[in-house]
């Protein structure tokens, strides 16, 4: 499950506004990397560039040697990059089970004709798929809730379900957009455990956008800092915390650098 994402001088311009400029970084296989920056720094735009929602004005994005720009979002998911959203985007009218099942559609070996004929192969396939979905729900403690409408879940469970659904696409790289947003301290602790667990269990690379510094500093191996769409720092949590540019971006340039804690 090795796959390397490379961004090379990526720029995107919306009219006169340069949302992301000359951004380069690499995500290595199995790495847990954080993307931080003040509000409006372009973090979600970077996610949207990687997942094909936006096409970069200039620069290259490649995953495992495949150039991503020009691919549609659903094709990029098939290539092996899955994501969650800043504001939860589950399928509200579907049950917990069906939310995860819908992410398995891309793994179906057969299409519409199979569903219409309903032969033995169809039933075998559906049964196999059902057990795959249940296994996944079981790992994340959502099996008992499989028939509930996803709206009935607590906020933390909804976030978890969104991550499970993203994992159901069997990604090599998982992008988490503010997974801790709106969570209380206990839920954040659980989330950090969960992310570490996913990384170990599924052996995938994870990139997360997050404002909560405790979460980011606590789990990320490497951090990329954006400000006004440009990379101002990159390094381990300790390095980034001491970087004067980062402190300036978060606290303002006039601040004295005291102790190097920008959290």
């Amino acid at each position, binding site marked *: 499950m090795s796959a390397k994402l490379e961004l090379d001088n990526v720029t995107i311009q919306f009219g006169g506004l340069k949302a992301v400029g000359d951004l380069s970084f690499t995500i290595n296989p199995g790495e847990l990397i954080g993307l931080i920056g003040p509000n409006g720094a372009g973090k979600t735009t970077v996610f949207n560039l990687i997942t094909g*929602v936006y096409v970069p004005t200039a620069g290259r994005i490649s995953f495992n040697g495949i150039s991503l720009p020009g691919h549609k979002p*659903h094709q990029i998911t098939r290539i092996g990059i899955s994501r969650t959203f800043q504001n939860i985007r*589950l*399928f509200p*009218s579907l049950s917990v089970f069906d939310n995860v099942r*819908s992410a398995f*559609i*891309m793994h179906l070996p057969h299409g519409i004709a199979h*569903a219409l004929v309903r032969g033995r192969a169809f039933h075998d396939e*559906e049964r196999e798929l059902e057990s795959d979905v249940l296994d996944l729900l079981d790992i994340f403690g959502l099996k008992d809730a499989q028939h509930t409408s996803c709206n009935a879940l607590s906020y933390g469970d909804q976030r978890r379900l969104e991550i499970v659904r993203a994992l159901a696409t069997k990604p090599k790289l998982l992008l988490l957009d503010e997974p801790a947003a709106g969570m209380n301290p206990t839920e954040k602790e659980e989330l950090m455990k969960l992310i570490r667990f996913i990384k170990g269990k599924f052996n995938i690379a994870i990139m997360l956008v997050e404002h909560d510094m405790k979460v980011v500093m606590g789990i990320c191996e490497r951090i990329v800092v954006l400000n006004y769409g440009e990379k101002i720092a990159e390094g381990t949590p300790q390095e980034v915390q001491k970087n004067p540019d980062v402190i300036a971006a978060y606290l303002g340039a006039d601040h004295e650098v005291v102790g190097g804690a920008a959290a």
Partner: protein
Amino acid sequence: MKYKAQIFLFIALAASLGVSLCAGNIDDYFLDILLNVGINVTLAVSLNLVNGHTGQFSLGHAGFMAVGAYGASIVTLQLGDHLLQIFGGGSIATALTFLIALLVGGGCAALSGWMVGMPSLRLKGDYLAIVTLGFNEIIRVVLTNTSGDGPFGGALGLKGIASYTNFFWVFGVAAVTIYVVSTMVNSTYGRGFLAVRDDEIAAEAMGVNTVRYKVIAFVLGAFFAGLAGGLYAHFRSTISPEGFNFLKSVDVVVMVILGGMGSTPGVIAAAILLTVLNEWLRDFEQYRMIVFALILIVMMIVRPQGLLPASLFQRKKKESA
């Protein structure tokens, strides 16, 4: 049960054939209503695939019905005799000729559905509704303005279409429509339609090809509307462009909304109810629309999710599981 769906289809087809064979004993007026019910069920269930399951608001179902009606009628009017000769006469030849006519009508409708759908499914909500409404009007106006001596018959439409439609055809097509829509939706593949309806961006991010799903729903919906149109033409033996106006599309949309968006049983119930009500209120012709409007308003206040909403059946499934 594993082959529940196939068994349902088989029983429904056999039952329609059985009833059809003794249809002579059924009162003509009653049979007339029954056939209307069957055609409306086909229309409503097929539109429900587009509006209900896939969440794309189409207001042009009568347009596809018109394409199907004209396509099938032209086949039987222009080529009917040839085809009957080729198949050697008799009831089987009639059935084959009618089947070909219906499929040509459905195919034309599906093709027009694809042509309208490809560019316009990029639009959402109200915009798509307006484009499909526009398509409906274009079909009607174009047909009205064709030459009266030509194959399309102009404003007066076509008459003298052979009355091939009987109980078997109407309810056979309705059963096939119900089978196709419900088996397709009730599969992992079919969850894609619901995912597209619920959240297109999330569906796309989960690897669902949203454009393909929307086009499939649109084309299949149009195909079955075309079949319903062909049945209608060979039932009334006369069709005119005015019969496929905007109000006809609205009738079908009302059935879908009243029954419950995305609920096949609900939509079937609503199609039966509204067709029967329509007949029942025939003596109060001028007040009929008022009654319909009142029913809709009351429904929207009291039960906005429809008569038999889809969630009702999900809950049942959970209990039996």
